């Protein structure tokens, strides 16, 4: 079985006000030691079960994985190599925040086998960076980026957020032009979403966030797509843009609804039609691993229909859409037989494009992807 491996690192130097990820401000270094030990225990527990698994991609995400020292990261990856079968050409990505990187650490990351770096830049405007609660400024991003290039990273992604409070299209254009001028291999463009439980959410409820209107957001996103395509990026997933041959292989596993194993607090796994989640709280997670059990919190065995729906929803996020042949091969039934009504309706609305080999979102459909997806869910 081929699969992707995800490792979660829930700690950050500080918690950003918009963030609803499973991440926590690091209080003391000891937390990291116990957390790493827990990761080792979980990896060991799986090594028995997944002997035959062939890991095609590895992704270290967070939180802030680079809050760990270079050596710690090196050891974790070596341990993984020891316990699992990792493909020698595997794409191995680490998320990093500018400001948590230095030459020494970057060198160790390369030595660990990491070959892709994802920089959480978010903006190139210091005013917005500050409002977002980021610990870095625009110059830090540029410094980290070039340092990573010099150290030998040949595949770098930059994360950008848009539709920020008080942001207009010009602000976004300025940031994106700066990002593109660095010549990254990949760009992820996320519009800010206000999530319950965050500080931004509370401010939003109090009417304190001056967010762009739906129309402004539409204009921003529209411009982003045009601009990046003009600059040689392929818009291969709703929020992701890549230079040729630089798509995120790990994330493609998610969008193709293929199996992956998640290690760490709150990490999700999807194996043999079963999707489950580890305990989110790091303390609880650590405790569970000590008992020798897998730190699973809850899971869902997906029915054939649910698997089909998820495969469509995820597949439609990508430029490749959902191919009839692959669908038939995977589920034994024809996409057009099962979802004929939905597909025709969406085609008529101009949101879906139907060819002889696949369905995919139209440009309008990309903007109204949720309208399309709602049509498919039960």
């Amino acid at each position, binding site marked *: 079985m081929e699969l992707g491996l995800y490792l979660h690192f829930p700690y950050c130097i500080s918690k950003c006000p918009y963030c609803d990820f499973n991440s926590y401000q690091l209080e003391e270094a000891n937390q990291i030691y116990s957390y790493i030990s827990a990761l080792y225990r979980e990896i060991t527990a799986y090594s028995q079960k997944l002997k035959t698994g062939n890991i095609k991609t590895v992704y270290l995400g967070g939180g802030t994985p680079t809050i760990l020292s270079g050596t710690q990261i090196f050891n974790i990856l070596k341990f993984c190599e020891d316990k699992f079968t990792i493909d020698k050409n595997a794409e191995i990505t680490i998320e990093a925040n500018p400001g948590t990187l230095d030459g020494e650490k970057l060198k160790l990351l390369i030595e660990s086998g990491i070959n892709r770096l994802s920089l959480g830049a978010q903006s190139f405007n210091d005013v917005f960076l500050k409002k977002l609660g980021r610990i870095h400024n625009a110059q830090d991003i540029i410094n980290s980026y070039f340092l990573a290039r010099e150290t030998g990273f040949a595949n770098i992604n930059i994360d950008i957020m848009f539709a920020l409070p008080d942001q207009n299209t010009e602000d976004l254009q300025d940031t994106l032009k700066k990002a593109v001028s660095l010549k990254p291999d990949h760009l992820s463009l*996320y519009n800010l979403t206000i999530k319950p439980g965050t500080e931004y959410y509370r401010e939003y409820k109090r009417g304190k966030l001056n967010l762009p209107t739906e*129309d402004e957001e539409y204009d921003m996103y529209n411009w982003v797509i045009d601009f990046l395509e003009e600059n040689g990026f392929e818009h291969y997933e709703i929020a992701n843009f890549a230079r040729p041959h630089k798509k995120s292989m790990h994330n493609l596993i998610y969008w193709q609804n293929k199996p*992956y194993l998640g290690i760490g607090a*709150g990490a999700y796994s999807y194996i043999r039609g079963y999707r489950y989640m580890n305990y989110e709280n790091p303390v609880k997670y650590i405790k569970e691993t000590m008992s020798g059990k897998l730190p699973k919190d809850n899971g869902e065995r997906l029915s054939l229909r649910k698997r089909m*729906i998820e495969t469509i929803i995820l597949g439609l996020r990508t430029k490749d859409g959902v191919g009839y042949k692959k669908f038939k091969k995977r589920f034994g039934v024809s996409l057009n037989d099962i979802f004929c009504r939905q597909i025709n309706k969406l085609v008529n609305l101009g949101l879906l494009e139907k060819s002889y080999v696949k369905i995919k979102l139209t440009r309008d459909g990309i903007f*109204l992807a*949720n*309208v399309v*997806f709602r049509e498919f*869910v039960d």
Partner: protein
Amino acid sequence: MVKDYHCSMENIRNFSIIAHIDHGKSTIADRLLEYTGTISEREKREQVLDDMDLEREKGITIKSKAVRLYYHSQDGKEYILNLIDTPGHVDFSYEVSRSLAACEGALLIVDASQGVQAQTAANINLALKSNLKIIPVINKIDLSTANPDRVMQELQNISEIKGEEIILASAKEGIGTSDILEAIVKKIPPPKGSSNLPLRALIFDSIYNPYKGTIVYVKVVDGVIEPGMIIQTMSNDIKYEVAEIGIFRPKMQPIKKLTAGEVGYIIAGFKNIKDTQVGDTIIDASNPAREGLPGYKKVTPLVFCSIYPVDNKEFENLKIALEKLKLNDSSLFSEPETSEALGFGFRCGFLGLLHMEIIQERLEREYSINLIATTPSVMYQVFKKNGEILKISNPVSLPPRNEIEKIEEPYVKVNIITPSKCIGGIMDLVQERRGSFKNMEYIDEKILRLDYHLPLNEIILDFYDKLKSISSGYASLDYEIIGYQPSELAKVDILVNHQLVDALSFIVHKDKAYKRARKIVEKLKEIIPRQMYEVPLQATIESKIIARETIKALKKDVTAKCYGGDITRKRKLLEKQKAGKKRMKKIGKVEIPQEAFLGILKI
């Protein structure tokens, strides 16, 4: 411990408690029940007499109740005290008047800090009309804001009540309870009437019980009633055999007979609550009294609205729920109705706005039916050119303007009691609501009583809320219907995506049509979510557009991030949203959430 004894009429006292809302009526009742041992410590809980959840939550008493207390007085004698609890809101004034008719006296409760309120004055009038002996009680004297001296003066200013009659109490602290009980025994006269005369029993309430059928609350004025007797009501020839009679302690407790002066219940296989209307007289079928007790009238609904299930499949459930509610509420009116926009539903009539709110809430809460209720309306009288006179409560039924000679709408006399400093704001409000000033008098140097005539339509929506906000909660209101007067009225229609939404039509005074129409389309624009295409909203009078807005087409609805576990949450969220859309009403191709209809009610 079952006490079941009859004492002579001399030792019976029938009384009710009347008060403005929140002045502590139910708490006083609780203290009386405890003091007389009618309920034990164990059974004690707040507002013992209020059964329904809603009553407890809103702190109001919706249905009348009756409970028998046994009291050993300081004069050494045993008394039967029948406490007849009454609703405290103006909507239920007919029920109040019938309950009072079953009594010889009333405790008038006034809040020691709030003082005399509109309903206090209205209650005094009602009690005097029923020839009741009033025992004035100033409650909540324990409050730091209490000012019993001021309140005593106010009471004396608005009525014949004398200072020395007034009892000071705090039901919360249990102060004054024994004084109240002694006053009931000493000051309230025993019931008149005779056990030797043919049976006459006043129905002052009835409830439906799924096991026992309709249970009728009565006061036996003359004669005796026993199980096995054949009875009928004065207004109806249907005969029933009495199956059970009893008293409330406060739970139902069967007894052998009820004699003149006593209060209790009758179960006699009444099929329908309509056969036992409040105010009617129960008589002995074999020895019928010649005259019924005075005061019986059929209650007529004043406020109307249409109620539709959000999901058309719920129509049957709504029908059943309304029937069940009507079993207990003879003043609730409903008949099936069809709307192009909303499908099958009911046109309902209510005693007032509170009554309407209570019914809607009970349908949603007790029967779990999601409702859409249209803007409340009153009953208009439409005089057609061909001489026909129509009674119309639903804007949809209004004939075309060229067929109409004139329209009349119901007017009410409104009595407002307010601190004098708020008078400016109140005058503006009444003016804006097409009211005309009738009278003003000072209750004391700081408190005024104002009389106005207003169209009922102008007070059914938010008049009370506005009045409260203008007066920082101090002003209070009471009203009574005074009849119909001609008015310049017009029907405004609302079109969504060029399609008439009949359920949103409303009748309004011409001078206000434009402003109201403007507000409604603006509100609709705010509430109706963007659709896949542009949706025009228009308000029209006789197909002339008087206001318009446009809902822009949906442009962006996409979630940026979707990795690993996100898909689980994402799919569930999409499923939830889709279910939500199913609950929306489709008008043509436009999906309108329930809040759109509710939102308009607030305009």
